[in-house]
């Protein structure tokens, strides 16, 4: 079984990650997911690819800490976080968060909290590659 927190070059499978979560416990009553995808358009410019890079060790430690915090804060049964690195083409997957809880409310809340905190705390950067050139992305609030 893959680790619950991963930074990886290759694509991931939503089905595989949900199955891994479900295999953890039959006490799960609700699973919420956030799947971040690469858009082909940003700030009115065509985007062909997005290149991700990370301070890997710190990013992995931050994501692991976030998972632990979310499990404790929302009373989750389990959570998984996968973020891709390297070049991601428009339309492909970037990040997946899967959380399992006894009830839907904490699953939804935890999923939203995790992606917001990931964006704020994980040392990962993205560069948009367009027909006009390349530029590092300034985060949206």
């Amino acid at each position, binding site marked *: 079984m893959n680790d619950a927190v991963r930074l990886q070059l290759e694509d991931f499978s939503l089905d595989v990650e949900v199955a891994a979560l479900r295999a953890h416990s039959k006490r799960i009553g609700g699973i919420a997911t956030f799947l*971040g995808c690469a858009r082909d358009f940003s700030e009115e410019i065509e985007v062909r690819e997005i290149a*991700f*890079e*990370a*301070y890997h*060790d*710190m*990013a992995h*430690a931050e994501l692991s800490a976030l998972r632990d915090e979310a499990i404790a804060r929302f009373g989750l049964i389990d959570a998984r976080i996968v*973020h891709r690195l390297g070049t991601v083409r428009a339309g492909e997957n*970037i*990040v997946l968060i899967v959380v399992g809880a006894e009830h839907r409310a904490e699953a939804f809340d935890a999923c939203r909290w995790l*992606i917001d905190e*990931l*964006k*704020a*705390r*994980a*040392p*990962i*950067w*993205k*560069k948009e590659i367009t027909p006009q050139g390349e530029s*590092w*992305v*300034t*985060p949206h609030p």
Partner: protein
Amino acid sequence: MINVLFFGPVAERTGSRQISLDFREGLRWQDVRDTLRARHPEAFEIVSVVAVDGRRVGEQDTAPLADGAEIVFMSTFSGG
């Protein structure tokens, strides 16, 4: 030696991903920043997060660095 790493937009502005500096007793991360900021002012304009050995530090952290310390000067994150 002190090992300094740069990623993403900061690396683009410094033109390098790694710099090694000589270690001396009492050296603080702020001293390293001041030295490198003088060399690469355009890169340090966008530095907003600093980590020493994988842990975030702030201006209040003035402990001397250990020989072999790893310092990373980072811009605002944009993952996800």
